[in-house]
């Protein structure tokens, strides 16, 4: 019996990332997400549901950039705008929604990669500031380039998403399209976790110089993660544009980046589901606070403070917070 065989008998054969069953949970969640648009069919509720989906995608993109690639970015609203405008342009000039969606992914991912490359030497805080400037620059570009974007006048006549020639004219059908895309991206994220690149990226992100002398390529790894995140933000932009039918440059401002940050903090960065949980809650919170609209912003701000102080790992990380509290209680 070789040494390896002896060792293998003593330990499981795979790192934990390859163990566990992530897919059944994902399948159950996607199954449950099928029902809401069947129960609430008025246009207002369907609009909210589609909003939640688009924000979930946007936050998932931010999760890739921030939590996985380790790059805090404020350029989310810029990527969202690029996704929306390129998708509409390609859809109008090159055969419909799908060519627009693909163009949106490719171009936002490329812009994301270039962003990481251009600001590669910036420390974290300067990277955040640089991306804030970049996002604003992108939106100013679209605002002034009115022949392309329509500026404040806006863009209309946007082709609806379609599948096999069927136009998705109802909010319901667009919700299922968005859900399918979100599910696909969550599967892609699980596959990423269950692969060697996840640990390589974690090491490159948290111990860059050590990773470099170990033989990894930290810049390339982070750049790939950042590009994927930006591409997902582009998908969100594309779905927004084709779902809205009409939009103007006013739809894109820095508040969007802040909102996405709050969604991820609230949902929790410990899991990809944090992005979805946070997005759903913050899309529906204003609805619940409508009666207290006078105090809505205060409640909002307080909720965020409480979360950041008491539940630093967000809702998806409540388990960790609880474990910590239990440990502390046992010690005293």
């Amino acid at each position: 019996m070789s040494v390896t065989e002896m060792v293998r008998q003593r330990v499981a054969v795979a790192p934990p990332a390859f163990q566990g069953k992530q897919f059944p949970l994902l399948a159950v969640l996607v199954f449950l997400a099928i029902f809401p648009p069947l129960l609430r069919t008025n246009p207002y509720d369907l609009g909210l549901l589609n909003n939640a989906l688009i924000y979930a995608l946007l936050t998932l993109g931010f999760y890739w950039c921030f939590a996985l690639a380790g790059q805090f970015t404020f350029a989310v609203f810029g990527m969202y705008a690029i996704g929306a405008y390129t998708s509409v342009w390609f859809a109008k000039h090159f055969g419909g929604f799908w060519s627009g969606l693909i163009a949106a992914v490719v171009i936002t991912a490329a812009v994301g990669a270039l962003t990481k490359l251009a600001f590669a030497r910036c420390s974290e805080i300067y990277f955040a500031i640089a991306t804030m400037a970049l996002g604003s620059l992108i939106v100013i570009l679209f605002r002034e380039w009115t022949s392309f974007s329509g500026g404040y006048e806006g863009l209309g006549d946007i082709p609806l998403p379609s599948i096999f020639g069927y136009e998705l004219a109802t909010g319901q059908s667009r919700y299922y399209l968005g859900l399918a895309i979100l599910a696909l991206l969550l599967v892609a994220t699980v596959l990423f976790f269950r692969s060697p690149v996840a640990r390589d990226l974690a090491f490159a992100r948290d111990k860059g110089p050590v990773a470099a002398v170990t033989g990894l390529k930290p810049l390339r790894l982070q750049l790939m993660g950042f590009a994927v995140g930006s591409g997902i933000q582009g998908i969100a932009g594309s779905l927004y544009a084709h779902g809205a039918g009409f939009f103007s440059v006013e739809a894109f401002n820095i508040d969007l980046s802040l909102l996405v940050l709050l969604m991820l903090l609230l949902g929790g960065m410990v899991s990809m589901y944090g992005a979805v949980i946070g997005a759903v809650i913050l899309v529906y919170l204003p609805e619940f606070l409508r009666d207290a609209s006078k105090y809505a912003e205060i409640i909002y701000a307080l909720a965020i403070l409480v979360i950041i102080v008491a539940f630093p790992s967000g809702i998806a990380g409540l388990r960790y917070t609880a474990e910590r509290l239990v440990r502390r209680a046992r010690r005293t």
Partner: protein
Amino acid sequence: MLDARDITVRFGGVLAVDSISVSVADGEVLGLIGPNGSGKSTFINAVTGLVPASGSMTVDGRPVPLGRPGAVSASRVLRTFQTPQVHDELTCLENVLLGLPDRSLRSIGAAWLRRRALLKAERRRWDEALRALDFVGLSERAQAPAGSLSYGERRRLELARAYAGRPTTLLLDEPAAGLNHVETTGLVTLLRQWRDNDGPALLVVEHKIDFLEELCHRMVVLELGKVIASGEPAAVWADPKVANAYLGTVVVDA
């Protein structure tokens, strides 16, 4: 064979490393000693590209650019750190997997599109990483997060990662710092075993004299960024300049 010539590092106005030339032959164990602040760690950082330096370096006759960590590790020169640098949230096995030179199918594209080939390659890598863990005696902890290890175990884990990288030259920055007597003896045994089994050339920075005496063929002594003595351990210890650097000049009060 690693050959570093005229390595110079400046921090502002301070000459931390002043044109030091050191070469390590294949299979050789070279000790690098000197009082605190003499530039030992800075020299290692310069050679591995972590601090900007001037000078030149060749590995097996091929020039390696300074200041580029990727180029240094690509020429199979690896290192460990004064405080062990492992990723706490990854398991021991995963930490070792990071160091494997086999980089096939370790990209996001492969994670999505080439699952079958990727799993096959990973199985091969798991076996290799387990062998490295077995070498340092950590195979029992393979699935434990590195954050749960003791200080001495982390050192061994870092060594396992370097072992998995199959270096031709390994630079060890104070490998015995913070280890107790038993752990130090264990480390010496381990390094000797590696040395005598076709292991890499070793450049060891260390304060513990007995640790070096058991391991080294040759020693280089630094003081204030300069080489003040080099040669076989016994000869180096006999050198009055070395005693002077370590103990200071004895001033007799009249």
